[in-house]
């Protein structure tokens, strides 16, 4: 027997779920043979299915009132073919330049990578270099009394003494 059930979107039907497909066939006029006999026997005893069938029986007439989409005519296929030709031309043109374009992209990518590596190496080098060469504070304060002047090289013991004396004099 038919029973009421409900799903989303306010759907409420009194039809038996097992017979809904057959009821649809019957409404569409696409039922015959054993299915027609089976449904007919069922409808004799099921008021729910009879009611559900009656409820929707108007839908074909209602929906057939609206006309189907009109054929757009030969203009449509001509437009499509024109679009296809344009698209193919663009693809062909792109195909001609494609090897050069892809080579250019590869070159650009390699150059970018090389530049990035150089920048990374350079920044690392600059960070480490001052740390290695920076003199300590104490070393900066001690005067170098014994290193010879880069321009002058003493040739005798007297000259060494003279240079030390000149340095001392210059400081005072």
């Amino acid at each position, binding site marked *: 027997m038919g029973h009421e059930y409900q799903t989303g979107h306010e759907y409420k039907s009194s039809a038996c779920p097992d017979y809904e497909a057959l009821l*649809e*066939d019957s*409404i569409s006029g696409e039922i015959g043979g054993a299915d027609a006999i089976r449904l007919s026997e069922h409808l004799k005893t099921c008021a729910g299915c009879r009611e559900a069938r009656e409820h929707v029986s*108007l839908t074909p007439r209602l929906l*057939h*009132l609206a*006309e189907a989409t009109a054929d*757009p005519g030969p203009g449509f296929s001509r437009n*499509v*073919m024109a679009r296809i030709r344009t698209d193919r031309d663009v693809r062909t043109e792109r195909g001609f330049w494609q090897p050069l374009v892809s080579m250019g992209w590869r070159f650009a990518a390699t150059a970018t990578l090389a530049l990035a590596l150089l920048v990374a190496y350079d920044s690392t080098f600059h960070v480490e270099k001052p740390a290695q060469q920076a003199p300590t504070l104490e070393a900066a304060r001690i005067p170098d009394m014994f290193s010879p002047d880069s321009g002058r090289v003493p040739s005798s013991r007297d000259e060494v003494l003279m240079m030390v004396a000149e340095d001392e004099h210059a400081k005072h």
Partner: protein
Amino acid sequence: MPDVPKDVAASASTVAIPLGRRTRAEEERDLVRQAQSGTEAAFEELIRRHQQRVLALVGSILRRREDVEDVAQQVFLKVFISLKRFDLRSAFSTWLYKITVNECWDYLRKKKVRPLVYEADLSEEQVSRLDGIVSADRPVAGASEQAEVKETLEWMLGKLPEQDQQLLVLKEMEGFSVQELAEILDLNVNTVKVRLFRARSRLMDVYRRRTSPGSTKSGSHSANAERKS
């Protein structure tokens, strides 16, 4: 010429339909093969054969007249590009309609809109006119009445879930078979039938609610609102 018994005549007519269909299917296969080998005229003929149904299918999903033709053209462009990959194992129409459905959903996703929803109510005159036509079982007279009936039906369909609208429009207005709908929507034939039956029931709920005495009839059916997702 002797009279042909009714049962024989019936069986002859039932044989004639598949033969006709097979010929058309074979013809279409030849056209596809020719188009695959680069014959443009063959592809143009395929477009001519299917343009109306592709437009109907796109229209049933997008429900936006200004975009329908553009999307339908895009569908045929895609079909042309991927035609060489089509292996002829299924019918060309099934393959074409599946591409159409996917293209429509892609389009809606890209545009980030959902199909049109009719938010305003119908006018009392529109409802009573439609009811008069249906109850008198008379044909629609004239272009203006046809336009009004279509608008009223679209309003009613707009009150249903999208899949219900699509099934009813394609089956009843555009003449797609249940088998075709099952293939296009990747559903079981039985599932399509059940969904169609339920969609009919929901449509009639909307119709009865609007045409039964005492129902609220207010406002006018003028605004079509686009719901941004």
